């Protein structure tokens, strides 16, 4: 059975695309057939994070409007088998996506045997964001432990619960997962940043994982390789845990508190 996952947040710049790229890569590494769709019409970026920007010929809007077939538009990832990217269009026409068009693409992907269809939502609560979440079975809410991000996440949760297809048709509600990114355990310990438990309590969403703030995320996007592929990185380990938990594995949460630095480390850094 195919599952549609929306990665959303309300607020921009919290790590939706980074998370979409890493989670879809992780799911594909586990042997699933995955398609990740960039819903940010006009501001295409997932292709850059996935490192396939020079291979975009046709995009999501071309498929929706019947100018290209799905097969022509899907970009096959060069690193991980069974991973495909559907790029956003660069058009400035915000009405380029329609609900019927999106539904057709998702149904066609399901018929093609995709296990997971990951929808990378644009920021905001406008049409693009609403379309990205409309057909979702599960939602990954990406939040930073910061006031405006938490508030916007609460807003988007309200929309998930009221305006998705599942809500409108009175079906089982969308399963919600919280991914806390840019988490700084040191500042949490010193009371300068809300802890994961605070955010969970405020939003009443189950925690899927915490991604510690990491320099590797910028390095990864610089080189066009999802950060989950950087084996050494803590962010990668965090995303691997997130994928495992998403697939039902029980795993203890990591990166919640700061590592105690040994005296040697304190003296010589790193």
């Amino acid at each position, binding site marked *: 059975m195919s599952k549609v996952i929306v990665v959303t947040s309300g607020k921009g710049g919290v790590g939706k695309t980074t998370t979409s790229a890493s989670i879809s890569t992780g799911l594909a590494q586990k042997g699933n057939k995955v398609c990740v769709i960039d819903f940010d019409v006009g501001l295409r970026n997932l292709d850059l994070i996935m490192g396939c920007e020079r291979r975009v010929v046709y995009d999501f809007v071309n498929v929706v409007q019947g100018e290209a077939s799905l097969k022509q538009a899907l970009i096959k990832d060069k690193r991980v088998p069974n991973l495909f990217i559907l790029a956003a269009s660069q058009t400035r026409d915000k009405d380029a996506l329609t609900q019927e068009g999106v539904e057709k693409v998702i149904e066609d992907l399901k018929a093609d045997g995709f296990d997971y269809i990951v929808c990378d939502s644009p920021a905001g609560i406008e049409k693009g964001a609403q379309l990205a979440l409309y057909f979702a079975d599960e939602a990954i809410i990406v939040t930073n432990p*910061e*006031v405006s991000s*938490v*508030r916007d996440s*609460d*807003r988007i949760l*309200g929309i998930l619960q*009221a305006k998705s297809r599942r809500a409108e048709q009175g079906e089982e509600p969308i399963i919600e997962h919280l991914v806390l990114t840019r988490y700084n355990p040191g500042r*949490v310990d010193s*009371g*300068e*940043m*809300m*802890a994961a438990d*605070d955010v969970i309590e*405020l939003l009443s969403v189950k925690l899927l994982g915490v991604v510690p703030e990491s320099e590797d995320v910028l390095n990864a996007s610089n080189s066009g390789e999802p950060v989950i592929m950087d084996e050494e990185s803590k962010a990668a380990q965090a995303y691997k845990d997130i994928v495992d938990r998403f697939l039902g594995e029980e795993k203890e949460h990591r990166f919640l508190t700061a590592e105690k630095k040994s005296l040697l480390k304190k003296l010589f850094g790193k």
Partner: protein
Amino acid sequence: MALLDYLLGQRKKKSANQAKDRLQILLAHERSERKAPDYLPKMREEILQVIAKYVEIDQNQLQISIDEENGFEVLELNLVLPEK
């Protein structure tokens, strides 16, 4: 005095706690607004018009909300009448 406060452990409130406290209040307020029925703004207008026929009131003085209390939905109207 400041020194005494410090010694007594009355240190500055941690900002993370402030963030959580502010969000708790804000989210509760925004959620109740979100749940409010669509007709509320229009009903508010009409109620105001009726009241304005009899007393002079400040349009912004009417607060109207729908809350849930003990399983009942309660429509609450709050209006301060002007001093005579």
